[in-house]
């Protein structure tokens, strides 16, 4: 009976693990897409993450934070791919088209398009930290995923946010006096 029970328990554990992976796919795709900037590259990363997660499932502690564990696998693989291939982020054609077709009258949509573009210009470590935070991870989990101290995580987030804000503010925020001069010239 024991011999029959063990495989059965293992199969049940596999099923649970598989379901947890399935449940994680949307947020992994979201993280990968916004980290890499490309749809296909992102989905490759997620598929490889799923493979590696299965291969390393013995190192996963049931009940611990699977999301953080999967994020760590994905980001490590992302940096490995970037390092080996010297591959710079490429804007997905769909994303680029969406950006170009953004209706100018919809301010919130314009802001999202600018935000997406700005994110891709950030250093990847800052982009990654911002995405992990907005994915709902706690400081300690983000630090674990990134393999850095919490202070470094907070610093990257602060610097990333400041850079994004400056990008979103645009030239008017960078050169306010010049803008005033131009306005005066135009009105005069």
């Amino acid at each position, binding site marked *: 009976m024991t011999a029959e029970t063990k495989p059965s328990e293992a199969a049940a554990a*596999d099923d649970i693990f*598989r379901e947890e*992976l*399935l449940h994680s*796919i*949307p*947020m992994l*795709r*979201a*993280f990968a*897409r*916004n980290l890499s900037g490309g*749809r*296909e590259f992102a*989905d*490759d990363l*997620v*598929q*490889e993450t*799923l*493979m590696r997660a*299965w*291969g390393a499932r013995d190192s996963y502690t049931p009940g611990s934070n699977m999301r953080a564990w999967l994020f760590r696998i994905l980001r490590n693989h992302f940096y490995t791919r970037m390092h080996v291939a010297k591959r710079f982020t490429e804007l997905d054609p769909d994303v680029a088209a969406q950006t170009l077709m953004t209706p*100018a009258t919809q301010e919130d949509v*314009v*802001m*999202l398009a*600018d*935000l*997406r*573009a*700005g*994110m891709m*210009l*950030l*250093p990847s470590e*800052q982009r990654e930290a*911002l*995405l992990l*935070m*907005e*994915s709902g991870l706690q400081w300690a989990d983000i630090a674990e995923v990134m393999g850095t101290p919490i202070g470094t995580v*907070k*610093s990257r*987030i*602060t*610097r*990333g*946010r*400041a*850079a*994004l*804000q*400056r*990008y*979103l503010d*645009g030239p008017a925020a960078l050169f306010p006096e010049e803008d005033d001069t131009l306005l005066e010239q135009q009105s005069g």
Partner: protein
Amino acid sequence: MGRKSEEIESVSPDNAPDRQNTRPVGRPRRDDPIAIGLRKLLSDVAEEPVPDSFMALLDKISAARADVDSKSASEILDESISGRTGDKA
């Protein structure tokens, strides 16, 4: 609002334009426009239908795990990636 594809200059302690106006280190407020925007960028992708290739991959892994003599994980991944043509859900 139009943007140029210039590199964003990172704000470091040496070149921060206005440290007084920089939010203290910590989580931004939930109603912060950048935070809201980032969550929207994430949720837009997360709400997309998951391509069938992901389910197929997990099925293959499950089958391979049940058979120790089956293909290696890398072989399965290679097949999955090469076979994922036109799957852009």
